[in-house]
């Protein structure tokens, strides 16, 4: 039967070319849309490496106006008083780049004999702990680290994998420009830009408070904290710094708002993709209805020769699906060139998105084609054989 169907398809190639072309383009469109969406969805739901919930950032400018000794004292007092509030679990100063603030700082060089780069964030000894950075090995910074001979650094696992052999990195030295850092901790993940980016090689260094490197206070609050705690923090700022000029950013909200910039195109693509699929499905449906109604005589003959309804349905659905299969095979071969030839710059994780997109497109089109083929085929098979022959 399969061979019979393949012969039919081949002999009807004139009319099948159109179907083939339509399904091929449909596959390519679904592939592109789903690759884009899968990439972003997976990135969004892959771990940040820390708890975003219940993290607040307290920003103020007042301490910047102080000279460096007063600055350090005022900062320490502010941190102590904030920590003393009910509902505050921990606090640490953050430098260079606050998560989801849209800014990042990248540093790199070839001092180690190969091109190395990392985005850097800074903080005081409590910063990593307050973020809740999950360490796979090593430790957070401590007070003693300020007096260490070599500056300490916490890296993410990505650095270890991208630039080294992925093994333990504790106590290894990183050279960057004139500076040297000793690795004290390795974080599982650190992502902090907008939730959609692939993870970068990222590291955390200890800020030098006397040089005013970290001004913003990152605060981990108890779950459910709200305006009351904000007001309490405001009173602390006023008592310590004699200013009402400050603001509090809730990181979770900041993240949602910055993510919106990426959600918008994703949703637009999804809507366009869905619309296209619907259109193609409707078109397919119409074409198949037409084709099958043109083949009523054939249906009548087959029925007279002893085909039962199920065999008619099976034949038509398989005929159409095999054409779709051929079109999708071409699509898959083309789509596979992207990761195989490395047409886009991406690592294995990003390439795996392409494989998922190929699989997804294949499944979706299979469903659409079989769905669209089934109803007209069934309609044809339900024709009374005498009538089908009569209408030839």
């Amino acid at each position: 039967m399969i061979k019979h169907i393949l012969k039919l398809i081949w002999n009807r190639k004139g009319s099948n070319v159109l179907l083939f072309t339509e399904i091929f383009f449909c596959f390519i469109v679904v592939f592109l849309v789903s690759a884009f969406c899968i990439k972003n969805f997976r990135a969004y739901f892959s771990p940040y490496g820390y708890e975003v919930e219940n993290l607040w950032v307290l920003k103020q400018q007042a301490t910047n106006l102080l000279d460096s000794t007063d600055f350090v004292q005022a900062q320490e007092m502010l941190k102590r008083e904030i920590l003393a509030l009910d509902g505050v679990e921990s606090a640490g100063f953050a430098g260079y780049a606050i998560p989801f603030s849209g800014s990042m700082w990248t540093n790199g060089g070839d001092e180690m004999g190969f091109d190395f780069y990392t985005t850097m964030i800074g903080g005081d000894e409590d910063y990593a702990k307050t973020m809740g950075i999950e360490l796979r090995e090593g430790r957070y910074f401590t007070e003693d680290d300020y007096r260490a001979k070599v500056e300490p650094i916490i890296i993410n696992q990505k650095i270890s994998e991208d630039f080294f052999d992925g093994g333990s990195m504790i106590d290894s030295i990183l050279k960057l420009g004139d500076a040297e850092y000793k690795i004290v901790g390795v974080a599982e993940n650190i992502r902090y830009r907008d939730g959609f980016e692939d993870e970068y090689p990222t590291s955390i260094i200890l800020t030098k408070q006397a040089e005013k490197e970290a001004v913003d206070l990152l605060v981990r609050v108890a779950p459910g904290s709200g305006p009351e705690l904000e007001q309490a923090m405001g009173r602390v700022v006023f008592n310590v710094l004699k200013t009402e000029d400050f603001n509090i950013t809730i990181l979770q909200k900041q993240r949602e708002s910055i993510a919106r910039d990426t959600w918008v195109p994703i949703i637009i693509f999804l809507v366009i993709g869905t619309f296209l699929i619907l259109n193609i499905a409707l078109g397919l449906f119409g074409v198949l209805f037409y084709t099958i109604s043109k083949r009523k005589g054939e249906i009548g003959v087959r029925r007279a020769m002893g085909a039962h309804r199920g065999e008619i349905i099976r034949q038509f659905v398989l005929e159409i699906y095999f054409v779709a299969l051929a079109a999708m095979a071409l699509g898959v071969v083309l789509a596979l060139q992207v990761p195989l030839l490395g047409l886009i710059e991406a690592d294995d994780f990003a390439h795996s998105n392409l494989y998922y997109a190929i699989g997804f497109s294949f499944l979706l089109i299979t469903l659409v084609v079989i769905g669209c083929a089934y109803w007209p085929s069934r309609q044809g098979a339900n024709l009374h054989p005498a009538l089908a022959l009569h209408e030839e």
Partner: protein
Amino acid sequence: MINIQNVSKVYRTDTIETLALQDINLQVAKGEFLSIMGPSGCGKSTLLNIMGLIDEPSSGQVELDGRGVSDYNSRKTARFRNEQLGFIFQSFHLINDLSVIDNVELPMLYRPDVSAKQRKELSAEALAAVGLANRQSHFPSQLSGGQRQRVAIARAVVGKPNIILADEPTGNLDSQMGDEVMQILIDLNENMGTTIVMVTHDERMAQKTHRLVRLFDGTQVV
């Protein structure tokens, strides 16, 4: 072999009701070659379709091979058509997208117990029997009307049915081709003992069969 009892057939459309057959009683014996004649629209095709289980009577009984078939479900009638019946139509009804040999093997395709190799052999045999052994890979459009009808006959006999139902098989053919086709049917009937019911417009063809039945406006007149 075929036993039609009090069969009537009414076609209903939204506007009109056509009485295509009215109280037909007809017996066809095993090995008989029967022809049916009558003016156009008198119900000949309808009667043949009812005998061939591709149409159902509005009332009355149909018995084939001693079995009442009115309670057969669609799967069972399909099976019966496949194994016991061969159809030949005025307009051939070949599938134009299939080669001659693929057209001929069609009935065997719906027999799960026949292998592809057997199908090929049986189809080639049936084609040879109608003198078209060298036309296997042609397409219907490359054949003359007479050749097409011979392909259709090969298709009708490939499954070795007990009954052949032919609806004006020579109606679209010139007289020489018609005679050739008729001769094949006669040989089938004589050599294989196949029961044949043939609708025809041609008195000459009807003369060559064992018995003639005439229909007029849905009723049997002879």
